[in-house]
């Protein structure tokens, strides 16, 4: 664990979800978590900006959510993958497109790297 950042990031390509990241991403993750309720999903659909404002998201966070920049949300914003999956579900982006974006690949490129390309893998 780094004393300066409090992060345990010695594994390349990995952002361990530390307390510090959880603190940084609390509003973002709280917004994402809220989408486990159907009525909240509907409210978000109706007015994405207003809904995210209600959770106190910054302009940067709102922009990255809209851009589906999962990589930035996780690496720079303290986003937790399990919470962000609920945001992805709103736009039909399951785990595979979310993962491909983080790797800088298309879904097709990513699928070529798998043993058995199961499509329902959320």
């Amino acid at each position: 664990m780094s004393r300066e950042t409090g992060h345990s990031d010695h594994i390349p390509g990995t952002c361990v979800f530390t307390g510090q990241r959880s603190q940084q991403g609390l509003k973002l993750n709280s917004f994402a978590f809220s989408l486990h309720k159907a009525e909240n999903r509907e409210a978000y659909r109706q007015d994405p900006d207003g809904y995210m404002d209600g959770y106190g998201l910054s302009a940067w966070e709102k922009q990255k959510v809209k851009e589906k920049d999962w990589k930035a949300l996780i690496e720079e914003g303290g986003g937790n993958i399990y919470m962000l999956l609920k945001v992805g579900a709103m736009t039909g982006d399951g785990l595979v497109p979310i993962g491909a974006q983080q790797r800088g690949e298309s879904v097709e490129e990513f699928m070529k790297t798998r043993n058995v390309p199961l499509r329902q893998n959320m």
Partner: protein
Amino acid sequence: MGRLVAGIGSSHVPSVGVAFDQNQQEAPGWKPLFDGYKPAKAWLKDVGITHAIVLYNDHGTDFFFDKYPTFALGVADEYPIGDEGWGARPLPAVKGDAVFSWHLANSLVVESEFDLTICQEMVMDHGLLVPLPLLFDHEPDWSVRTVPFQVNVLQHPLPTPHRLWKLGQALRTAVESYPDDVRVVVVGTGGLSHQLHGDRFGHMNSDWDKEFLDRIEDDPESLVDIPHDEWMERGGAEAVEMMVWLGMRGALTPKVNKIHRNYYLPMLSGMGLTVLEDTLTSAAA
């Protein structure tokens, strides 16, 4: 009295729940996974399991980081099926046993000094719901009473593997001091290798998965001192949840009868299953 009959280690990959609900059991990509559970389910029925204590982690279904318990025990008679963001699965509410759960709570907190969060309401997450219908009948209702036991493996600092091992031992003590004739399986869920974020998304390690399965069966204590960083390095960051299996294994006799194992590595996660019989309980039968 209560008997600790068996332990099960199982993955809880969410896509398995989707495939199950869509009746993909015979699809070529899924058959190796679903067929692997058939002997497990049949054996659990044979040995007359009445109760399952399921150690799992919630993924933002019922618990959030505003207040995040390290260990949370369900003490209800019924647990609703969670909506994780894409609708609840079509499963009957999980059937609990509040009396048994409160007994476990008393034993774990007072006798074994585990400081638990005790939940009279708890919504079920795929961590528990993926393996449960693969191991027990659920139509028209569940054939087993379930005790959900949630472990934090998301937000560091996490409990140590050693603590989970001790938890397993405490669970055995608690089960064996129950006055009624319950026959219990402890199920540890999670893993195997997978990483779901960062440039290392998609990391899998079948060598480590197989080594882990060997060691959890034959030499589980060799796993209890492995630091979190090493679990993450070998299996992927999210695969640190593999250590939850130690809570299952710690509940069993050091030597176990190995009933069944399955392993499949299709897509994003190593999918493992092991079925272990307690030798003390089986010898007493």
